[in-house]
């Protein structure tokens, strides 16, 4: 991770109901697309740090499913060490080497998805920029209002004044 520089940093922002993540990669677009479209490549990088990915099935086409298991092999991640997490990706749209649209969710070993598991519709665009590749990852949340609410509430700074308001209000009532 020592080779990072500012230009390669992840840029994230919220656009309407979508959370957007952008990042540049110093690699040609065809190669970056390959790391998303070929089973062996995906397994080599998909899991977070310290987690390995094993593919149970992989069918890269619209309507096709990628069913995989991530296992935590890192003893330093105490509680997570040895844990397994099954994931299921269903592809909706594929335009090589430009775009992939899929749904990402948790599943069990057999690939069953529980009805209350959070699902995310992800769109990944691969943009060629003079030999480099810009990845634009858009995650659409199930509830448009939910995300909007979060942003509008301006979580961090909003809460302190909320407490002052209550104090004031309670004072008024008790007078």
């Amino acid at each position, binding site marked *: 991770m020592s080779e990072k520089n500012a230009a*390669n940093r992840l840029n994230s922002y919220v656009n309407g109901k979508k959370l957007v993540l952008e990042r540049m990669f110093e*690699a040609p677009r065809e190669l970056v697309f390959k790391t998303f479209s070929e089973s062996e490549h995906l397994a080599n990088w998909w899991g977070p740090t310290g987690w390995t990915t094993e593919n149970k099935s992989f069918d890269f086409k619209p309507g096709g499913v990628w069913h995989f298991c991530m296992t935590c092999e890192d003893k330093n991640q105490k509680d997570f060490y040895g844990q397994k997490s099954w994931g299921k990706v269903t592809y909706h749209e594929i335009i090589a080497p430009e775009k992939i649209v899929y749904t990402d969710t948790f599943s069990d070993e057999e690939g069953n998805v529980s009805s209350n598991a959070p699902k995310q519709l992800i769109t990944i665009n691969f943009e060629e920029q003079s030999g480099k590749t810009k990845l634009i990852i858009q995650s659409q949340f199930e509830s448009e209002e939910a995300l909007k609410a979060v942003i509008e509430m301006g979580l961090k700074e909003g809460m302190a004044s909320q407490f002052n308001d209550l104090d004031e209000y309670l004072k008024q009532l008790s007078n």
Partner: protein
Amino acid sequence: MEKILSAIAEPNRLNIIELLRDGPCTVGEIAEHLRLRQPQVSKHLRVLCEAKLVEVHPMANRRIYKLHVQGLKEIDSWLDSFRHLWEDRLDQLDDYLKELQRKEKDE
């Protein structure tokens, strides 16, 4: 998290949250502001309380509703964890792409 998302997916409940941003209210005040019937407001408040987005403070014979930090923090950390997961994953991809290109050169 599922509970929270479905709690605020309902427009009236979202309106209640937005109203409570401006300060705590009683059921009657909420009903009046949003032009809803009180039993309807009470029902929505129950869902919001269960999702820990709103909490209630009894005050003499009145019940005052206000935003609850816990649920709001949960939404925030959920968004954060999603961002972190991708950050971490894309770091791995970056390293992997470098490795692939190094191998290509060597061959």
